[in-house]
């Protein structure tokens, strides 16, 4: 035995949360970079060109809302106003859906407050025919392409017009025409499926790309590893997005391994180029999205992107964050609010104003209200028409075998 008497007693390390109900958040440990500071490699650059990026943060908008540095691309002000509109609409939609849940019109809801820029800006980088494999917190992908709110609301309400026929928990949308893959409750599963979809597109010779989405908590699932591995081996046209919003329900990202290294850094071990991006900076998300999508489209292989953001809202309507983090914790979060930041930028370049902002917000809230009234007219979870119980037995298989027909008849249908 070479152990000396003075050797420390074995003990474990348990990561600390930077915030708790009794103390405000301290995010000084999170690695930030100044806007404009991080280089923009050529899309076909060697892996070595990315070594540094996983430990830094691509940011375009500075604290005054000015676009800086190599990732600031010339953008059409109208495209930015569309982005602002998409984010505002997403937030208004979330607020209304939470209200509907509190009114007992449905059982459950999940907001993406504070994370709107990521899905909304990334969707703008995609083309028709591409496929997102989202989690339950990328409703912005649908809203940014003006997918009908009524359709989404009917799913949340599980009513007669719910295309999922009331089979899925609220927010588990499916919309092939919008390039939005059916959401599953099982975390991480879609990440490797996205890689398979991209492999299929390449086998088929189609110029389509897949986008995988995962939260930082779910990166601990084995499918995260499998997805990176298969993406690195076959190099299909896929973009692997990690949304690091600091929280997996009550667990801080440190519990998922985020204190030891960044989530972007994980890709390097697989030989996959990776970038770490300010997820509350619409311009940065859009620029990186365009860049990674172009890489995939030009057969240059996969990219992993870590979006650094903050989950402002509770995990779900069944969650109470005041039990595990400081109230108003988001005020300690240094990357601010994505809507406020894009708004400041647009006003700064003379393409927006407080008045227009207030007017747009009111218009979108009216739009959401109108959609909500229409969706409610088709019924809610506990009231009004819903899918016939006979439909419960459909779509298990393409055609119901005898045992499902028997069970349907036993129920009286």
């Amino acid at each position, binding site marked *: 035995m070479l152990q000396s008497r003075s050797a420390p007693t074995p003990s474990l390390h348990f990561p600390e949360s930077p915030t708790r109900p009794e103390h405000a958040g301290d995010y000084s440990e999170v690695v930030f970079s100044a806007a404009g500071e991080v280089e923009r490699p050529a899309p076909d650059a060697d892996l070595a060109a990315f070594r540094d990026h996983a430990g830094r943060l691509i940011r375009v908008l500075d604290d005054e809302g000015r676009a800086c540095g190599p990732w600031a691309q010339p953008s059409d002000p109208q495209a930015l106003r569309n982005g602002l509109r998409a984010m505002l609409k997403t937030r208004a939609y979330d607020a209304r859906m939470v209200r509907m849940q509190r009114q007992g019109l449905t059982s459950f809801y999940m907001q993406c407050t504070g994370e709107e820029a990521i899905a909304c800006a990334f969707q703008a980088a995609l083309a028709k025919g591409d*496929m997102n*494999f989202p989690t339950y917190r990328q409703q912005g992908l649908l809203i940014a392409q003006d997918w009908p709110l009524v359709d989404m609301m009917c799913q949340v309400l599980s009513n007669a017009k719910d*295309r*999922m*026929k009331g*089979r*899925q928990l609220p927010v*588990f949308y*499916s*919309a*092939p025409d919008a390039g939005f*893959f*059916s959401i*599953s*409750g*099982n975390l991480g*599963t879609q*990440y*490797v*499926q*996205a*890689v*398979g*979809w*991209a*492999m*299929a*597109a390449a*086998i*088929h010779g189609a110029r389509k790309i*897949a986008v995988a989405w995962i939260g930082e908590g779910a990166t601990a699932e*084995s*499918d995260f*590893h*499998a*997805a990176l*591995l*298969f993406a690195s*081996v076959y190099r299909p046209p896929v973009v692997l997005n990690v949304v690091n919003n600091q929280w997996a329900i009550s667990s801080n990202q440190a519990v998922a391994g985020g204190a030891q290294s960044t989530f972007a850094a994980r890709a390097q071990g697989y030989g996959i180029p990776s970038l770490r991006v300010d997820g509350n900076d619409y311009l940065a998300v859009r620029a990186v999205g365009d860049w990674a999508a172009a890489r995939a489209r030009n057969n240059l292989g996969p990219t992993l992107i870590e979006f650094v953001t903050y989950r402002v809202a509770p995990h779900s309507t069944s969650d109470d964050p005041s039990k595990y983090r400081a109230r108003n914790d988001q005020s300690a979060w240094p990357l601010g609010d994505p809507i406020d930041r894009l708004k400041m930028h647009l006003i700064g370049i003379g393409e927006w104003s407080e008045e227009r902002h207030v007017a747009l917000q009111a218009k979108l809230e009216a739009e959401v209200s109108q959609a909500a009234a229409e969706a409610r007219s088709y019924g809610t979870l506990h009231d009004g028409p819903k899918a016939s119980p006979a439909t419960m037995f459909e*779509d*298990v*298989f*393409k055609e119901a*075998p*005898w*045992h499902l027909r028997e069970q349907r008849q036993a129920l009286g249908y």
Partner: protein
Amino acid sequence: MPRGTMIEAIRDAVDVMIARDERVVTFGQDVGYFGGVFRCTEGLQKKHGPHRCFDTPISETGIVGIAVGMAAYGLRPVAEIQFADYMYPAYDQIVSEAARLRYRSAGDFTSPLVIRMPCGGGIYGAQTHSQSPEALFTHVCGLKTVIPSNPHDAKGLLIAAIEDDDPVIFLEPKRLYNGPFDGHHDRPIVPWSKSEHGELPEGYYTVPIGKASVQRAGADVTVLAYGTMVHVAEAAANETGVDAEIIDLRTLVPLDIETIVTSVSKTGRLVIVHEGTRTSGFGAELAAEVQERCFYHLEVPIQRVTGWDTPYPHALEWNYFPGPDRVGRALLKAMEA
């Protein structure tokens, strides 16, 4: 009629389908260049190219996960898990994803894939090369579970599985790959080329999923079996002289209930035989269905001859494996009353 092995049957089926349907791809551990550890995909990569037949990393969840994504795109993946004993890391993708995709998306997305898995014992494979996990699939709604017992059915069922629009678990009793096996491990091995059950038609044909076949017609007792146990049951019937009607189920879900009910209503006696462990095994489901549907025809209690409720042992293989002696005793017992 030409004869061939079950390995050739499986290779033929995949070969025929890759050539016939541009959506068909096959992959798995050692499946590509090497042609599979059991040779089931030998020559396919050379013939069809790596985009149609390729090697994968050793990751079952990755193999099935990419298959689900490919199927959602519109391909027809045929994924291989090297041994059924190693499917557990993929179970989440099978149960939560492949099986439920059509249902949860109300048909927006589907997963027309096949997962091939060599299964079963009788080869001194011990705990992790002998399992029969079919009950872990038959319990999952949305999956079809198929298990052939001879080359003709293996090829026809596999082609049908690839063409099926639902996910199919395709279990291949590895003990039957090279020849039929009746449980007499102390006797010389008979190859498929010398077996009356070794017929292997050339080209494209299908055997319908959901249809059992009567392997041996009989009047005294019905035996429900699948995979290797079909041959064991046949030996037991011949050796005991009991005129057993042996039904090879071929598909476990959806089950061919009509053929079963017709037979048991005729014989009034039922013995169920499977390699998988007893408690909550597929035999329990068969016994329950028959009891509900044939109660007034039953002359004796339904018997199950199965693997014991233990992990599959190495040295005590032949004490574990439900061989012709154990099945024969059940047949005689069924005839006592």
